């Protein structure tokens, strides 16, 4: 289990996101996000070798082309 504390969440929110979060909310977020991070590690147990994220150059290129095209 990822050991994420409310204090850590408060500091993260303040120092990275410029966002103030209450102690109560920070504890709740720590519980939720900690669980997610733990589950994320478990995803690493899947046979992901050789699998890349499906971001893809085709999408990148198409989006860039759209930005340079006149809006339809």
């Amino acid at each position, binding site marked *: 289990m990822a050991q994420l504390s409310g204090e850590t969440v408060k500091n993260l929110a303040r120092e990275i996101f410029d966002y103030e979060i209450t102690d109560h909310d920070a504890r709740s977020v720590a519980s*939720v*996000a900690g669980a997610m991070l733990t589950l994320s590690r478990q995803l690493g147990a899947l046979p992901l070798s050789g699998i890349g994220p499906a971001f893809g150059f085709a999408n990148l290129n198409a989006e860039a082309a759209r930005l340079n095209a006149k809006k339809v």
Partner: protein
Amino acid sequence: MEILDLDVAALAERLRSKKISPVEVTKAYLDRIARVDEKIHAYITVTADDALAAAKIAAAEITAGNWRGTFHGIPVGLKDLLYTKGVLTTAGSKILAEFRPDFDATAWARLKAQGAVMLGKLNLHEFAYGITSSNPHWGICRNPYALDRIPGGSSGGSAAAIVARTAPATIGTDTGGSIRIPASLCGCVGLKPTWSRVSRYGVVPLAYTMDHVGPITRTVRDAALMLNVIAGHDPNDSTSSREPVPDYTANLRAGVKGMRIGVIRELMDGLSADVAKSFQGAMRQLTDLGATVDEVTIPTLPTANVINSIATFTEALEYHDEWMRTRPNDYGADVRRLLESGMAITGVAYVRAQRARTKVLADALAAMERHDVLAAPGSAITAPKVGASRLVGEGEERPRAATRADIEVDAVDKILRFTAPFDCTGQPALAIPTGLGSDGLPLSMQIIGRPFDEAAVLQVSAAYEEARGAIAAPSI
């Protein structure tokens, strides 16, 4: 037959043959909204004057012999997440409470080009980030079958309006189940097409890589008719697919004889007795119609909920980052908490989730190698009471007299885990009612297809719908 009893297909036939006029139809729906929406709160904005003006134009065009297509003169409602030029588009939020876009979302633009008449903008969970549609800014949307129950969400208004007969067809969006959950809990048809099948241009995003736009309707045929109009490549959405758009109504009467349906083992546990019985009954009916039904397994499917959550936490926060800094108190408590949770999700977790997503899709496709479609319940339960469903991180007010265990419903375990996997895989998935439970509330199942094979999903769903027969409408 009363106008409000007619589905889109029947309305279109009568409009085209000039047996009824778009003005009559629009007035019937506006009258119905005026009579019942106060109880349901399906609408955030009713555009009555604009609707009547559009209906008059449609009437003149049809009278002059210029019928533009199925939706010419048909009233529709739009989830208030879709941009509508000059018309309030709130996303169910306080933050966009006065936002009037200067262009239309492509899905709406395509319906409008065919002469559809917009009745108004429909209530939703704030910023589409939740499944209750208990909106703190615009009113609690309620289930037409029982006003103390949620309609589901986030497209709660879009489904409630169909069932309350305050719109014959609506558009919803789906990132974790937001078309299919309200369709399931309200008792109507909700189709999440393949990711990229319908343009997302002009739709307020929740999670870019998993947002889908699709129809919510009374019948399977109506969903096919709407998909015929809104599907297809859009130069304004570079991710929208260039796959050809078939006529989705072509195989609706082809039946299921010889088709192979795989029931997803991983989604058959934890069902209420009513859901289990109803789902098994639906599978028996499909077998009686000539389909082969057996079980398939997708071992990685349970991980899809984690993948969906991590991707949504991250992508949603990126969109809301600026407002979270400047207007945090303008969010409802539950949505703000979910956005705050995104702050602690790491980049490593996000990329790993996206890699694992590929694996889940590969496993789902492998499970479909010998099947035309897959099937699963729409949810494990019928609609929870307002205030009873809990998403991770949600903090709603609860009645003091009841204990948490008495009233709390774990929305992830009972609802989202049935729908979110197919946002993760991007496969088309349709929710269709299978009857009413012992509590009088709608039950449903999902039919899931291969990417871009909405036609098979619709074919199986249409055959089942015909065999199932009518379901008693709610009395409002």
